[in-house]
C-alpha cells in the first residue's frame, strides 16, 4: 500500500517537473506582456473601484472584461454552436444568482446550509400563488418585491433560531426545512399545486435573446452588490466567523448578528433568483424549485467555482450548467450525464478543493510576478 502511495507520489512529481512547471512557465511568459499592456487599465480600475471590489492585476482585468464581453455578446456567437445556448446560458445566469446567494451565507460564514432551495422556492411559490389566487393578477412591480420579501421572511424564520446552533445542527435544520417544504407542497396539493405545481406565472418574454438579457443583467447587478459587501468590513467579519467565531466574540462583535445579516442578504439574493426562475419558464413546481437536489446543486456550483469569492460561484454555475445541459448531454445523453457531472464535481472536490475559478483567478493574478 505505502509502496503504491510512494509510486503515485513519484509519478505526480514527475508530471509536475516535466509537464506542469515548464508549461506553466511557458504560459506565464506568453501572458506577462499582455499583463503589462493591461496594467494601466488595471491601475485606473484599482484607483476608482479597488477599495470597493478589490484590486486586480492587468491580466485579471483582461479576464473580467473578456468574460463580460463574452456574456454580453452571447446572441452573436451562440447560434454557431449545436445546442440551445441561449436558453442554457440564461439558466446559468439564474443559477449563478443562487450559487452566489448560498455562498454569501454558507461560503463566507462557514455555516453550511443544505436548504437554500427552500428560500428560492418561497419566492417562486409566492409569485405563483399571487398569480393563481388574485384576479386581476398584480403587475410584476408588486409580485416581485412581495416574493423577495417572502423569501427574506422565511430566511429569518429559519435563521433566527438556527444560527445560534453550531456544528451539524444548523445544517440539519436547513436540510429539514427543505424536506418540510417539499412535503408541504405534496400534502397540501390543493393549495400548493402538488407534484405538478403551477403553470400560471406570466413569463417575462419568449424572445430568447431578450430573455437572456433579462436574466443576465440582474445576475451582474447581484454580483456587483455582493462583491461590494464581501470586500467591506462586513465580509471580513463573516470570514472571521468562519475561521474563529470565538475570536470574533472576543473582539466585541456579536457573531449571531453578523450571521443573521448574511442570512438576510442571502435570502434576498435567493428571492431574486427565485423570481427570475419563476418568470423564466412560467412553471413553479417542486422538481424545478424545491427538492433537495436543487440545494445540493447550488452548493456544488459554489464549491467547484470557489467558495467565499462571488466570482467563483458565478464561474461554477456557468461551468455546471454548461456541462449538464450541453456538453455532457451531447456525449452521454440525458440520464448518464448526471453521473459524469457528479463524478467531475467529486474530482474538483478532491484535487482542486479551493475551487477551479479561484485557482484560475490567482494563477492569472500571479502572472507578471511582482504582485506575489
Amino acid at each position, binding site marked *: 500500500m505505502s509502496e503504491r502511495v510512494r509510486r503515485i507520489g513519484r509519478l505526480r512529481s514527475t508530471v509536475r517537473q516535466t509537464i506542469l512547471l515548464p508549461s506553466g512557465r511557458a504560459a506565464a511568459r506568453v501572458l506577462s506582456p499582455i499583463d503589462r499592456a493591461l496594467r494601466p487599465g488595471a491601475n485606473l480600475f484599482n484607483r476608482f473601484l479597488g477599495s470597493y471590489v478589490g484590486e486586480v492585476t492587468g491580466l485579471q482585468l483582461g479576464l473580467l472584461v473578456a468574460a463580460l464581453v463574452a456574456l454580453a455578446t452571447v446572441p452573436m456567437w451562440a447560434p454557431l454552436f449545436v445546442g440551445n445556448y441561449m436558453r442554457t446560458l440564461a439558466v446559468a445566469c439564474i443559477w449563478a444568482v443562487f450559487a452566489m446567494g448560498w455562498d454569501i451565507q454558507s461560503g463566507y460564514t462557514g455555516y453550511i446550509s443544505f436548504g437554500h432551495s427552500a428560500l428560492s422556492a418561497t419566492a417562486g411559490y409566492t409569485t405563483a400563488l399571487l398569480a393563481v389566487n388574485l384576479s386581476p393578477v398584480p403587475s410584476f412591480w408588486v409580485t416581485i418585491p412581495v416574493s423577495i420579501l417572502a423569501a427574506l421572511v422565511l430566511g429569518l424564520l429559519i435563521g433566527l433560531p438556527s444560527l445560534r446552533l453550531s456544528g451539524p445542527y444548523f445544517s440539519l435544520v436547513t436540510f429539514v426545512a427543505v424536506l418540510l417544504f417539499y412535503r408541504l407542497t405534496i400534502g397540501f396539493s390543493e393549495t400548493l399545486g402538488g*407534484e405538478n405545481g403551477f403553470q400560471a406565472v406570466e413569463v417575462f418574454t419568449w424572445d*430568447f435573446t431578450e430573455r437572456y438579457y433579462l436574466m443576465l443583467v440582474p445576475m451582474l447587478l447581484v454580483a456587483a452588490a455582493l462583491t461590494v459587501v464581501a470586500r467591506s468590513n462586513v465580509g471580513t467579519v463573516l470570514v472571521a466567523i468562519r475561521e474563529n467565531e470565538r475570536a470574533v466574540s472576543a473582539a466585541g462583535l456579536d457573531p449571531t448578528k453578523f450571521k443573521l445579516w448574511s442570512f438576510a442578504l442571502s435570502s434576498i439574493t435567493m428571492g431574486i433568483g427565485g423570481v427570475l426562475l419563476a418568470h423564466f419558464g412560467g412553471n413553479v413546481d417542486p422538481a424545478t424549485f424545491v427538492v433537495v437536489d436543487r440545494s445540493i446543486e447550488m452548493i456544488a456550483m459554489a464549491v467547484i467555482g470557489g467558495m467565499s469569492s462571488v466570482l467563483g460561484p458565478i464561474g461554477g454555475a456557468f461551468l455546471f450548467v454548461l456541462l449538464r445541459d450541453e*456538453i455532457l448531454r451531447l456525449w452521454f445523453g440525458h440520464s448518464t450525464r448526471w453521473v459524469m457531472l457528479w463524478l467531475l464535481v467529486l474530482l474538483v472536490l478532491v484535487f482542486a478543493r479551493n475551487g477551479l475559478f479561484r485557482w484560475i483567478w490567482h494563477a492569472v493574478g*500571479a502572472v507578471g510576478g511582482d504582485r506575489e
Partner: protein
Amino acid sequence: MDNDDNNTLRSDRTGKISVGRRRFIGAAGVGAVATTVAGCIGGGGDEGFTVGHLAPLENTQGIGSERSAELAAEEINEEGGIRDEDVEIVSANTRSDPSTAQDEASRLINQENVDLLVGTFSSEVSLNIMDMIAENNVPYIVTGSASPAIIENSTGSDYEANKNIFRSGPINSYFQAEAMGGYADYLSDRHGWNTFAYLADDAAWTDPFTNNLPGELESRGYDVVYESELSTGIDDFSTVMNDLESEDPDAVFRFFAHIIATDMLASWHQRQAEFGIEGIHVASMTPDFYELSQETATFETTSQSGAAGTTDITDKTLDFVDAYQSFTEGDDDAPDLPMYMGFNTYDAVYLYREAVEEAGTADYESDLDGIVDAMLGLEYTGTAGEISFYGEGDDYPHDVQEERGENDEITNFPITQWRPGGDLECVYPEQYRTADHVQPEWMG
C-alpha cells in the same frame, strides 16, 4: 458532501496571496474543457421535413406515440414523403416535466428547425410550452393531453397569436365528462347502477371532470355520494377504499393519468368491494397491465382513443395496429399496442401531410394562414375516428370535434374493459361494442 471542506478554505480573497505560477497549468486544463465545446460547432439543416416529437419516453404512452410517429414517417416516405421531402422524426423526452419539456421543445425549434411538432402527454407540459411554441409559429398538434385549458389559454384567448396550435385527439376532457354521462346511462340500463362516486388525479386535465361530471350525473338523475381529488403522489389507498365502502356507490368513476392505481385494484379484489371501477386509468391502457396488476385489473374499464385496437373504429384502425405490431417486432421497449396517444400521433402526422398538400406549402414561416385554413378544411378519416377541427368562432378553436350519434351522445370516446383471462373488450359506445360490460363477479 464534506462539510469540513469549509474549514480548510483559505480566506485569500484579495488575490494577493502567493499561488505558485506552476498552477497556471490549471487554467490551461480548464481551457481544454472549454475547447471541447468547439466540437459542437455546426447547425441544424433545413433539408427534408422534420417532425419534432415530444413525449415522456419512460412512459408506454410516449413510446407508443413515438413508434407510431416513426411508422407514419416510414410509410409516408415510401409514398414519396411530404411535398416530395423525406420525413424525419426527431424525438425528445419531456419526462412529463414542464421545465425539461421547455428545454427540449426549444431545442427542437432552434436546433433542429422542425417543420411540425406533435405529441405532449401531460397537460401541465402542454400548457407550459405552448406560449413559447406560439411565439415561434411552428405548427404544433397536441396528441396526448386532454385539458380544455390547452385550447382555452391559446387559440381560445388570442386566436391570431396562437393559430399554429391544434389538438387532434382525444376529445378534450370537457367533452369526455359529457361522454361519461352517456356511459353512466348505459351502466344504469345494464346493471341498474344509479349511485356513483368520483375520484381524480389532482392535475390540470381532470379539472373539467371535477367541475362538470358530478353535475352531469346528477342532471341525469343519478346520486353522487362521494367526490375526492387525490394527490398524484398517493401511495396508500386504504382511506379512500374505506370511504368508498362506507358510501356504498354502485360504481366509482376515477380519472387517473398520474396515479397508477394497482394497489387500489388489488384492494378492490381482495375486499370484493361492491362497486364497479370505471372512467379513465391511463396505466391500464398498457397491454401488459393485466399481468402487471396480477390480474386485479379484471373488470376495471378505461376510456382510450382507438379502443386499443379491439374494434375497427374506421377502416384504418386495425390495419394500423397490424402495421404497428410488425414495425415494433423485436423492439422490447415498445408496448404491444400503439396506446391511445399512438393512434392520435399517427393520425396527426398523416393529417398534417394532407393539410400541407392542400395548402401547397409546408413553409409555415411564410404561409401559416394557408396551412391553418387547410387544417380547418380537413375532414380526415384517421385510425381513431373522423377528425375535423373547430374553427375560429367556436368554443374550442382548433380542437378536435367530438362525434355524435343518433341521440346526440358523444361516440368518439370508446371504453374498454379487462376481462378474466386478460382479454380486452370494447364495451361502449354501442356502434363499436365488442361485448357488453360485465360487473365484477362478486357483485349481484
